[in-house]
């Protein structure tokens, strides 16, 4: 009874107990037959892969693998950096570089004499401004 109580208090497994329990897992291995099947499948997959590696699908799959190997995050960072670099180059490059410079030409003004300058103003026929009907004298204001 005392022995049982004592053991129930010492509950936490020691470091050595844990490591020896973990070491038991070392012995768990697949059987030999598994590896024979594994190698058959492996070679079959390799042959299929070699066949697929030629042609457009092969190029596409290789590009896909290249992207996946690089990692999406790194790809995004790379794309962002490249974009920032191109933008910086575009903004920092003076706009005159590469443009064809046109030499300024002095403005020339040519005075063209007006044709028929003498007849430009026509004289209107004389108009006599006189009231036709005069009001009586007593009603005249002025």
């Amino acid at each position: 009874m005392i022995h049982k109580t004592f053991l129930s208090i010492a509950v936490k497994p020691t470091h050595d107990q844990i490591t020896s329990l973990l070491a038991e897992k070392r012995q768990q291995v697949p059987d030999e037959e598994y590896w024979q099947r594994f190698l058959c499948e492996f070679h079959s997959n390799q042959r299929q892969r070699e066949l697929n590696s030629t042609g457009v699908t092969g190029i596409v799959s290789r590009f896909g693998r290249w992207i996946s190997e690089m990692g999406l995050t790194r790809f995004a960072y790379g794309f962002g950096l490249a974009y920032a670099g191109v933008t910086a180059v575009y903004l920092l490059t003076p706009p005159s570089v590469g443009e064809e410079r046109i030499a300024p030409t002095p403005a020339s003004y040519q005075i063209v004499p007006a044709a028929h300058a003498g007849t430009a103003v026509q004289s209107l026929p004389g108009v006599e401004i006189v009231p036709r009907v005069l009001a009586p004298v007593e009603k005249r204001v002025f």
Partner: protein
Amino acid sequence: MFRQLRPPDPDQDLVTRAQQGDTRAFDALVLKYGDKLYGLVYNMTSHKEDTHDLLQEIFARAYQSLGKFRGSATFYTWIYQIAVNLTLNFLKKRKRRTGLSLSEMDAKARQDPALIDTTHEANPERQTNLHELQGKLDEAMKKLSDTHRMVVTMFDIQGMSHAEIAKVLKSSEGTIRSRLHYAHQQLQSALQDSWEERF
């Protein structure tokens, strides 16, 4: 001043032959490291089919990249790095895709007939007890983060040294020790209740 000499890669001959197109040499490498990599991936995914598919991918990636292997690390370290990277990526994708917790994964993993426990066949009672404890341990392992579970798997299950793990994970030995310490503490706490019932 003096450059530290690295011991020669024991797989150098097989690797060279495989690089020259000898598929049998590559098969030999698969058979040599298959069990260890299976253990690594299976303890990380807890799923038999996922483990199989991932192993196919790991060896396919190694086969395709063999031409780029220059021997700056051993083949063992190199293929472990491929396995670790692909496994961690796979776990991230699986979490995003399904939102499944690891406890919902292969519950029958321990009874998997494809896995042979080579040590306790002669003692069925011990085997049963061990299975129960292993079940509790698996549950506790699943509660660890991917990186902590990876370190525990490599050190305690695969028997790799701190230095080897540090090389594979491209980390310092101090970081590996710290992660292991934390993970062991977590496992001890998680197994506390089942330990009490048993002893």
